[in-house]
């Protein structure tokens, strides 16, 4: 076989971009958020992320071995799922919850559909939503950032995220107070409560800018998603600022940025057409706003993206671009 020529169909050159390079760059883009998470919540956050990565890779390898398929943990997609899952967990989360989440994310969310490319739902979100619904107490136990690496995360209280606080306050007091106990700059830099990865808007934006610059993710989905959320929450805020939170908080705090830039843009589960992406982003924004403003949960990003994931096949089907030279039927 040594000197035989290789023959294939044209084209004979390929772009250097591969699945592992894409996944690696996504991991890279998540580093600022990881850093802020670890800085804010201490070493424990790092352990959670590490545990998520290790258990996710182990589940992926084990399930593929069990099904007699080639093991694909080196393509980096499981790693991205793991990090996203970990970043979507509160820093107080018990270790076994991380493992359960990893199992649902990889095995149920991805492998039984045939692995990367076939899963209709974002695996990390499947893991998170399973946890959120099954273990609501553990999943909503927040901690304020301590900013001391070795601090023990004991100072916990529920409803410490800006969105959660606002929702509880409106429920108990009927209106919002004149001065909020948190500030926009805090949400921007990562000084409010929340999941490990979602607290600092700045860190997320740095990562997102990198991905958009590298053309790894389309800018349209996050723009539509965030823009729609901003507009809807803004409209309610303008109409009744006593009752509804400033839209800037809706954008900067909670999982919106993490979800919009890193999970709604998961290429496997969003539409491939431009119009489809636009509708997808708007849909995510509408659902997120509706759940946040009127629903039982303070946060709706995960549900919104999962629901829109379900519409992806239909969007792909109904938003086929105009083919070059196609004459519109009259």
């Amino acid at each position, binding site marked *: 076989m040594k*000197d*035989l*020529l*290789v*023959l*294939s*169909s*044209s*084209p*004979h*050159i*390929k*772009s250097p*971009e*591969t*699945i592992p*390079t*894409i996944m690696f760059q996504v991991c890279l883009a998540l580093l600022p958020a990881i850093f802020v998470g670890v800085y804010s919540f201490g070493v424990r956050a790092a352990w959670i992320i590490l545990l998520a990565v290790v258990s996710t890779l182990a589940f992926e390898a084990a399930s593929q071995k069990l099904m007699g398929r080639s093991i694909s943990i080196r*393509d980096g997609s499981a790693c991205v799922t793991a990090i996203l899952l970990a970043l979507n967990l509160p820093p107080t989360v018990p270790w076994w919850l991380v493992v359960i989440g990893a199992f649902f994310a990889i095995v149920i969310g991805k492998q039984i559909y*045939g*692995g*990367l*490319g*076939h899963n209709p739902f974002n695996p990390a979100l499947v893991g998170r939503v399973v946890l959120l619904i099954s273990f609501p107490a553990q999943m909503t136990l927040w901690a304020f950032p301590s900013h001391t690496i070795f601090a023990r995360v004991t100072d916990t209280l529920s409803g410490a995220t800006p969105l959660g606080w606002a929702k509880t306050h409106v429920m108990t007091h009927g209106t919002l107070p004149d001065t909020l106990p948190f500030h926009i700059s805090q949400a921007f830099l990562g000084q409010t409560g929340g999941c490990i990865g979602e607290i600092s808007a700045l860190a997320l934006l740095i990562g997102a800018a990198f991905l958009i610059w590298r053309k790894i993710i*389309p800018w349209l989905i996050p723009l539509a998603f965030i823009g729609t959320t901003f507009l809807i929450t803004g409209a309610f805020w303008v109409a009744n600022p006593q009752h509804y939170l400033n839209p800037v908080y809706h954008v900067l705090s909670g999982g919106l940025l993490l979800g919009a830039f890193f999970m709604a843009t998961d*290429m*496997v*589960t*969003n*539409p*491939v*057409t431009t119009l489809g992406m636009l509708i997808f982003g708007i849909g995510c924004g509408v659902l997120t706003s509706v759940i946040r403003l009127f629903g039982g949960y303070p946060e709706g990003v995960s549900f919104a993206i999962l629901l829109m994931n379900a519409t992806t096949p239909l969007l*792909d089907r109904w938003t*086929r*671009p*105009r*083919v*070059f*030279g*196609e*004459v519109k039927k009259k």
Partner: protein
Amino acid sequence: MILHHFPGGIHPNDEKGLTAHLPVENAPVPERVFLPLSQHIGAPAEPVVKIGDTVKVGDKIAEARGFVSANIHASVTGVVRAIRDYPNVFGRLAPAFEIETTDDAPFHPKKNREDALSLPPQTLIPFIREAGIVGMGGATFPTHVKLSPPEDKPIDTLIINGVECEPYLTADHRLMLEHPSEILEGIVFLHHILGARFTYLAIEANKPDAIKVMEETARDTKINIVSVPKRYPQGAEKQLIKTLTNREVPTGGLPMDVGAVVQNVGTTFAIREAIRWGKPLIERILTVTGRGIKTPKNLRVRLGTPLSEILNLCGGWKTTPGKLIMGGPMMGINQFDTRVPVTKGTSGILLLPRDEVGEYHPHTCIRCGRCVTVCPMGLLPNFLGSFAEFDRFDDAARYHLLDCIECGSCTYICPAKRPLVQMIRYAKGEVLRRRKKAAKK
């Protein structure tokens, strides 16, 4: 001039630096040439000489059979040794002339039609037809057919395609640098034949020297030299028409449906030679390039020269052999047999070293949508590929499978390294086969 935008497109490294600076050399006349009867789209030509006949360079040895077909001429002076099955570019055997060279003299023109422009336009077409000229960009569609549009399809735009958007290839580039006035004369002839209102010569922006030379040459004419942006597949017929005129060739249609005719610069040059000197298509310029060849060259080669001769001339493989390609890297045809001859449509010979070829490990589609973004036809190649994989040809046809121009952009960009073009080609073949079968019933 306002340029219009076609959807998609990619920006691969153009790699033209390997040969762009090299003047065209005349390759020595080979000892034997092999001229397939079918070097064009349409019916194969019919031999008009017998085994043992002596032929002179430029003699017609096979006649076009039907309208969509092309004559074949002897590319050397010599003796017809055989008309037999010989490997062709598709890796199959097909009938070809084998001519043993006895004299390597070049073609000697018998006439000089200086007055060609005073002849009625329609009388020029037979000269082109007689010379066996086909589209030399690679499509090999008989040129006289393209120049004879039906009455109800008036042509108002003539586009000369000097884009050469395929990476690596520099044959057209060199031709424009070295023979600008001949190309200009060819354009004038084409303009005379078609009577088009607009005449464009499109050149990709990465060839500023060619643009300059052609602009200088065409200074006093009405020919618009247009610098088009560097983007593959800018040189594809439909995309080029869109860029220059904002007209879209309807799906399943031809350029003449929007009043345009596109001719490659190489073809234009050949047309000029045919009309002016009565010179048939017996040689062409091609680029021998890639990191696999010892000395890359631009060569003027007699048709029918086997690949092996050309490889020898350029020093052969420099590295471990990887891929041997006839044409460019995006749409060229892979070869394994160096007996295969140069034909009318061979625009280049590309040698890729083994380490540039890589292994074949396609992943399942991860739906990244990059193929959708780059498709110049606005198709959804990811779905077409998946439908082909599962033999769902009806679905594929509904997704405009047959509009694919097989430019290869989707396959180039695919991070999962899926052979989308091959899948699409397969599905196209199956759709057409099934239609034919259904029509029979």
